[in-house]
């Protein structure tokens, strides 16, 4: 750790007991109940309410958002150690020593998530009214979206890991249903399945971590796990940390479980914006930051988190640079940006706050970018190939404006929001290690490259439209959310730094640590900005004149790899899919044929009358009996080995 | 294990005798195959003529056979009970009567549903 400076300031997280939920905070459950009720109504009423379904969808989430804002104002009026509230709905499982309540915890960390989910969620709901206007199943779409919001709120409001797991599975299910929403596309159904299976791998991590916590601490509530974390052995904590990291990697599309996110772009664009950019994919970051009491005590697991974050940050950026599909390029960018957050979360108290800060700004500007991309697609017959875009800025000026705001935010041009959050992460990274810091700066440069490539290919240059394309601006129901998010992209960073004071706000939950840095902050910011501008310059240089309609074939190995998602599918195939499939095939074969063949062979050898074998039609029964006998012998042998001295 | 030694010896003797006699007859006995020899039961009784295409017996045959077995087993239970009737007392009497009723029920069922009609 070359760059590790002396600790300048240090604040430990406040492990104060939760306040009883009184006043407005009695209604924490309403935050979840509203969208859930909306989902139930929309999904069970069949063709009833078909014309008004989307209104219900928007209204329930909107009211939740308003309630969330009221709670925020109320919370801001209280002192810093008085901002966490707990509410128990009912005892869920109480068996033996195991006691889990359906109970909610609203503190500073979950508060910002509630706002992100409900406000961005409301805007995306409104946008979807226009985007899905011609879809016959629009009502079902809104039902699934509401289901997602409810599950995501449950995830961030749960006061214990088991209830969090419920939300975790819930968002997975909703995401899965929404990726496969256009089921008539085979690719969509396949993508949904892939997302589900890979997520299950991550879920193994979470369920094992929960079991391990239960064994170690006798409880799975946040408060008692964190209060007792110091008493557990180092190896236990490391295991819990690594298992939680596996879970986070699955949900947040981090290396090595990143493969599903690019395919997930088969879903409708509002879904990509809400679930696969702004909220669900950041659940992994939430999990790590929420479990700070564990990661603070295990250097190994925390370092693993940083490594995973750095790797994903780089490969996501590289993939984003090579994709011609605008949504997939944005998906690569999402992977990369979440890599930043995971990296920051792995830095410990130096980085937790900035992980969440970047998560919030990213949630806004990435939703903005995705919805702008959706607006472009809406005007271009649902095309996604950037090689067939170009010169669209005149045709869709609002979309262009919103996209530009998002663009400036993500590459981190001051005073747009990404500048504040990303620079903080790079700063924190340098406090910990120069290598990680340099990787952060490098990724910022690549971000500048691929985002410029995207904006140039889409909005500038010559028109390379398909013959029947008539680009036009989207209806107001879509552009108004875009405008709001565009302003959000511009100002969220500033607002959170100067008005919201995000560092002070989150410190009671996550703790904060500052370290001495060899170089002044301003120099570091200049350095980062310069790197970004180099990336921007390179992209403009390459794409300034013409963009070939067919992707060039003579490209570097890196580009080929990036186009193939870093050969991820091939790797998955070799590592996981084929072995499982062959095992299953072998077992089937063994069950049906091998044993039978053995019996037949035995019978033929013993009897010497193979001709008669043909008359045996239902020979399977004796096969089964033979297997039973073998099983009996095996069981008796095993018992004999143990029981006989 | 010594207590089991005689059992093992007995088992070995029995198996040895079986192997010995089967092997011996197969070596010494004359082999004159004819139709009766390859029949299912080599003891002279002609098997029931069977329908074409499969070795099915009429279901009626099974019904009669099962009826025989049921009442046969009933006797097995009734004999010891009758012999020890005086010692066993009222409880055993009631239990036996219940047993007989239970046995009568399927008999009645079979009779009423035509199980005893041969044609």
């Amino acid at each position, binding site marked *: 750790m070359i760059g590790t400076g002396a600790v300048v300031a240090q604040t430990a997280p406040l492990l104060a007991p939760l306040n009883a939920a009184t006043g407005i905070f009695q209604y924490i459950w309403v935050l979840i109940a509203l969208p859930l009720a909306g989902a139930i109504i929309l999904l069970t009423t069949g063709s009833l309410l078909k014309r008004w379904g989307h209104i219900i969808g928007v209204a329930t989430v909107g009211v939740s958002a308003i309630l969330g804002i009221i709670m925020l104002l109320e919370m801001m009026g209280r002192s810093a150690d008085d901002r966490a509230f707990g509410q128990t709905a009912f005892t869920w499982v109480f068996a033996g020593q195991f006691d889990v309540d359906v109970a909610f915890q609203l503190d500073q960390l979950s508060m910002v998530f509630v706002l992100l989910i409900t406000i961005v969620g409301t805007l995306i709901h409104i946008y979807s009214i226009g985007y899905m206007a011609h879809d016959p199943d629009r009502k079902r779409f809104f039902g699934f979206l509401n289901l997602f919001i409810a599950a995501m709120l449950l995830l961030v409001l749960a006061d214990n890991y088991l209830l969090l*797991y419920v939300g975790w599975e819930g968002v997975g299910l909703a995401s899965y249903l929404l990726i496969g929403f256009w089921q008539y596309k085979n690719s969509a159904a396949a993508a949904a399945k892939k997302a589900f299976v890979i997520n299950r791998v991550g879920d193994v991590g979470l369920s094992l971590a929960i079991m391990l916590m*239960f*064994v170690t601490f006798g409880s799975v509530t946040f408060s008692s796990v964190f209060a007792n974390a110091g008493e557990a052995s180092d190896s236990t904590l490391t295991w819990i940390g690594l298992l939680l990291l596996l879970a986070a990697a699955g949900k947040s599309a981090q290396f090595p479980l990143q493969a599903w996110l690019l395919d997930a772009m088969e879903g409708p664009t509002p879904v990509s914006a809400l679930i696969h950019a702004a909220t669900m994919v950041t659940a992994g970051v939430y999990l790590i930051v929420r479990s700070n009491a564990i990661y603070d005590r295990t250097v190994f697991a925390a370092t693993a988190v940083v490594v995973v974050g750095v790797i994903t940050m780089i490969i996501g950026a590289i993939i984003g640079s090579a994709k011609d599909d605008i949504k997939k390029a944005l998906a690569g960018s999402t992977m990369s940006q979440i890599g930043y957050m995971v990296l920051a979360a792995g830095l410990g108290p130096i980085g937790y706050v900035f992980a969440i800060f970047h998560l919030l700004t990213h949630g806004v500007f990435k939703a903005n970018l995705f919805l702008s991309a959706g607006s472009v697609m809406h005007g271009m017959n649902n095309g996604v190939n950037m090689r067939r875009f170009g010169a669209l800025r005149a045709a869709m000026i609002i979309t262009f404006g919103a996209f530009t705001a998002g663009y400036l935010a993500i590459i981190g041009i001051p005073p747009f929001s990404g500048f504040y959050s990303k620079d903080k992460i790079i700063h924190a990274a340098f406090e910990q290690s120069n290598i990680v810091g340099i990787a952060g700066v490098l990724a910022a440069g690549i971000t500048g490259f691929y985002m410029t490539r995207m904006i140039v290919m889409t909005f500038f240059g010559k028109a390379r439209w398909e013959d029947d394309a008539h680009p036009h601006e989207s209806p107001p129901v879509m552009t108004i959310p875009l405008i709001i998010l565009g302003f959000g992209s511009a100002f969220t960073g500033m607002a959170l730094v100067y008005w919201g004071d995000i560092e002070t706000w989150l410190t009671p939950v996550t703790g904060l640590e500052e370290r001495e840095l060899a170089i002044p902050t301003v120099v570091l910011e200049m350095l980062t900005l310069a790197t970004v501008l180099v990336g921007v310059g390179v992209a403009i240089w390459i794409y300034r004149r013409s963009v070939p309609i067919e992707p060039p074939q003579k490209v570097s190995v890196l580009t080929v790899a990036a186009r193939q998602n870093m050969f991820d599918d091939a790797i998955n195939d070799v590592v996981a899919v084929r072995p499982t499939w062959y095992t299953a095939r072998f077992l089937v074969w063994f069950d049906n044929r091998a044993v039978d063949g053995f019996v037949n062979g035995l019978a033929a050898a013993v009897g010497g009358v193979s001709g008669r074998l043909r008359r045996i039609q239902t020979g399977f*029964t004796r096969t089964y009996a033979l297997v039973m006998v073998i099983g009996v012998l*095996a069981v008796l042998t095993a018992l004999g080995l143990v029981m006989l001295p | 294990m010594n207590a089991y030694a005689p059992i093992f010896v007995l088992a070995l003797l029995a198996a040895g005798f079986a192997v010995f006699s089967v092997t011996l007859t197969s070596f010494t006995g004359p082999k004159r195959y004819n139709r009766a020899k390859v029949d299912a039961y080599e003891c002279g009784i002609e098997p029931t003529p069977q329908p074409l295409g499969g070795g099915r017996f009429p279901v009626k045959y099974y019904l009669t056979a099962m009826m025989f077995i049921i009442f046969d087993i009933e006797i097995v239970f009734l004999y010891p009970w009758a012999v020890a009737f005086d*010692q066993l007392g009222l409880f055993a009497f009631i239990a036996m009567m219940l047993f007989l009723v239970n046995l009568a029920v*399927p008999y009645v069922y079979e009779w009423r549903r035509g199980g005893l009609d041969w044609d």
Partner: protein
Amino acid sequence: MDDVLIAPDIDYLAVAPMIIVGVTAVVGVLVEAFAPRRPRRGIQLVLTFGALIAAFVVLISQAGTRVITGSLAIDGPSLVLQGLILLIAIVSAMLMAERRVDPAGDAFSPRASALPGSEEERVLSTRGFMQTEVWPLMLFAVVGMMLFTAANDLLVMFIALEIMSLPLYLLAGMSRRRRLLSQEAALKYFILGAFSSAFFIFGAAMLYGFSGTISLPGIADALSANPGQTPLIFIGFGLVVIGLLFKVGAVPFHQWVPDVYQGSPSAVTAFMAAAVKVAAFGALLRFLYVAFGGARWDWQPALWIIAIATMLVGSILAITQTDIKRMLAYSSIAQAGFILVGVIAVNPEGVAAVMFYLAAYGFATLGAFAVISLVRQDGGEATHLSNWAGLGKRSPVLALSMSLFMLSFAGIPLTSGFIGKFTVFEAAILADAVPLVIVGVIASIIAAFFYVRVIVLMFFTEPAEVGPTVVLPSVFTTLVLAISVAVTVILGVFPQPVLDLVEQANVFLR
């Protein structure tokens, strides 16, 4: 005259539920003998439901009873499991009573002895013949199951095993559609079942040879009195356990399960899958805990291997199935593995968890087979998975219920299956069986794949040109579906009352 037989002191009230069901079954046979054909079905329905409900009411009034009466132990586990068996029986009886889905009548062959596809069968079918014997047969099976969970000695356990199994062999062969498959299933089930019964009784003889008694507590006493090991114990123990493992369908005694589940009429499969598991696990628990609880270190390793093999083989083989009934059969094998994890724990939490799991699994299974019985093509059930493509479009309510049952099997939160898996794994963790739990979690991940595949098929796949029709059922099957959905959701969201119940009833009397 000093050797007068001392009449056993029987608590008739405690065994009244079994007596009610048993006597009604006998009366049912008499109804078959004497009642004219036309009202027979009605009388049988009244008798069956009346007996099952009456038995359940009496059982409830016995709550808290803990008594050993003769060879039966009426204690917490047996009461809970008997109640569960009765509830499952009531619901599956509704499934069997369904007459509207098959245009030719109910799910059963009009006369099981008629040759499949013969003229005789066709005539019987068109004249509307019904096989009303299924009702007494089912009641006999229920008596056997109830007896099985309460049997406190090996002989009664064996008799219960046979009373339970014999009617099921018959019921398996009575399908109206696909008669040959059904009869083959019945024969296989019978032959292999007889085979396993032989193992059981042989093992019981061995244990008697060792301990001089057939009562389970007696065997436990003999074990603690003679700690030295002899082959009689482990061979006897092994054979009895194998007989029981066969009934729950554990690997490697599982191969009958797919064939029998596929061949039997769906209503019978549902009954078999749900209720036989309850009864057999009840007996297995009692045998392991009461007779061999003190010797657990000796048998746990072997059962560990069986549980792991059962979970993995069931889950992996289910992936390649193309018939939904076969798939559910392999799934039931995997579920048996998960339940075994709770059995192996040998602690009160394990007993409670197993009972909860059985309830959760039982009702989800009933629901799943109820759905299967409604998806039909050319008169019969459309069980090939490809037929299920796009079912969500045709019949969203049915597809949603099926998805719920699949999610419950997969152990997704807020369904009964999740709580079941969690309590089972918790009990195993308390018993320091962490590796077993890890295998369990991995197996449940594998299993999730094929459950979800059904959901994918129903919702994400375009329906085939000539798809199956979804039949509108009568009130019977509708009720079955409603009850199964309700139980699956309630046990997932508000499991506490049931958890309290099984926790109060988690100690075996000995």
